[in-house]
């Protein structure tokens, strides 16, 4: 079995905004085959960490190196403005933009390969019939699947998702997670996601990164989510205790 390759290598990195450090001295590697959930209380720095790893904010100290691996990014759909009359097809084809760097000029219409790839990605998320529909007219779960299809366009090695099930009902969330799970199992895509719903993290992730008080702690999903601190952080009514596998080793990816 080949040694895991670091897709993102974060060494002694600090992240923050406006000169204020929110997370300091982080050492973190995301490797091929990883499925990691990022959890933590509100305002603790989950999004800051995620944005730092994505390259959206520069580290104040230390380094964040990406191996040149292709990254598929799924933003929070609430951040996308519905005033744009974009169709599902147009949204998904946006993801092809990155695959033509140094190649096809930007003024050319999407190639047949791009169109075929977009259709393939839409079929994967079961939205091929909606390719001409307006993105703004889709349900929350459909929009999230559309953004997932866009993230798949550059054939990513790593999928980074920012709260992929936020504001989506349980049935739609389960559909989204089933797709992410298949992507990992069938195509070996590494997954890094910020999540609020711990039961989904438990179902999907092999490891968890807990962000708290300016630092992070990483460990196997079962151990981390059983931690009394996490239980306290997410409250006694948390879905951590409610359902799903409860021990490390029960994750569908652990042999």
């Amino acid at each position, binding site marked *: 079995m080949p040694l895991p390759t670091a897709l993102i290598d974060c060494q002694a990195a600090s992240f923050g905004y406006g000169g204020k450090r929110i997370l300091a001295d982080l050492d973190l590697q995301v490797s091929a085959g990883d499925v990691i959930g990022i959890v933590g209380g509100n305002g603790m720095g989950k999004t800051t960490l995620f944005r730092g790893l*994505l*390259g*959206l904010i520069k580290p104040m100290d230390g380094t964040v190196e990406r191996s040149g691996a292709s*990254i598929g*990014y799924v*933003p929070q759909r609430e*951040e*996308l*403005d519905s*005033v*744009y*009359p*974009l*169709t599902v097809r*147009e949204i998904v084809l*946006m*993801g092809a*933009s*990155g695959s033509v*760097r140094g190649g096809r000029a*930007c*003024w050319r219409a999407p190639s047949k390969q791009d169109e075929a790839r977009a259709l393939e990605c839409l079929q994967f998320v079961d939205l091929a019939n909606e390719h*001409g529909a*307006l993105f703004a007219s889709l349900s929350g779960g459909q929009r999230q699947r559309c953004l997932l299809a*866009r993230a798949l366009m*550059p054939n990513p090695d790593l999928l*980074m998702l920012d709260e992929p099930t936020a504001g989506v009902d349980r049935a739609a969330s389960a559909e989204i997670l089933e797709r992410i799970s298949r992507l990992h199992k069938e195509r070996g895509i590494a997954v890094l996601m910020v999540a609020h719903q711990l039961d989904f993290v438990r179902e999907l992730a092999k490891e968890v990164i807990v962000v708290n008080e300016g630092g992070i702690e990483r460990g196997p999903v079962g151990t981390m989510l059983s931690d009394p601190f996490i239980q306290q952080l997410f409250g006694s009514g948390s879905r951590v205790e409610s359902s799903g596998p409860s021990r490390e080793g029960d994750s569908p990816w652990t042999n």
Partner: protein
Amino acid sequence: MDELTLVQAFEFFGFAICATLIAGLVCPLVGTFLLVRRTGFYGVALPQFAATGVAFGFAILPWWQTHVGLGVDVESATAGDHVGLNYHLFWASVFTFGSLGVLLLGRGKGTETARVAAGFAIASGLTILFAHASPVGDIYVHELLRGEILAIGLHEFETLAVVLVLVLGALVIAHRDLVLVSYDRESAIVLGKPVVAWEMLLQLITGATIATGVMTVGPVLLFGLLVLPPLAARSLARSMTGFLVCSGILGVGSAGIGLCASFAYDLPLGPAVVLGGAILVLLVKPVCWLRG
């Protein structure tokens, strides 16, 4: 006017007709980006800033003539040749890009709408004061800024045509990336797009269109074409590409209605084109209701 045949009208007002149609095609495309970026009110404020720049240029004309020169004097500034036009264009551009830069730097801080409104009010006041201080008289400056497009000359038409054709080319070439950067900046960064360069191109396109438009077709027609056709097209559009195409078509439609109304009823052309745009906005509403 109503004795004029179409051929005679084109003979006399060929530049005005062509300028109106080109502006009708290109300005709404720029306005489309202003609308989706939720900066539609820039379409009203920026032409006013450009007008202030032109009035400022007139106010400092004696100083410029003495200390800078470059062939600019009162005669060339009022003759409508390239020297005078470039001088006005320079000041319109300085004020447009300057105010655009200030507004963009302040985005996300405080109330943007109030800031733009305050800027508009100040610019309107300054335009009158600068025109009053002008050596050519405030009536001349206000006439110029009102933009009687029928009086457009060869040099003005050439300048407008060159700038708007370049803007159209840039939009055709880069519209996909401009939409991506405007819609989802973070994803554009992750995809490796030169986001800052595309955003600067968009501001350059906006500024150049407005600065040139104020100097040639006038602020009234510019306001109308930047705002009304995209507003009508937004209701009809079923895709982003369709939105852009529809804005351009409705812009040319507004220009056509305005030209016909102007020649038929002897109306000033700029306001007639704006009225044409308003009619299209009203006509689109029942179409949308019928489509559900």
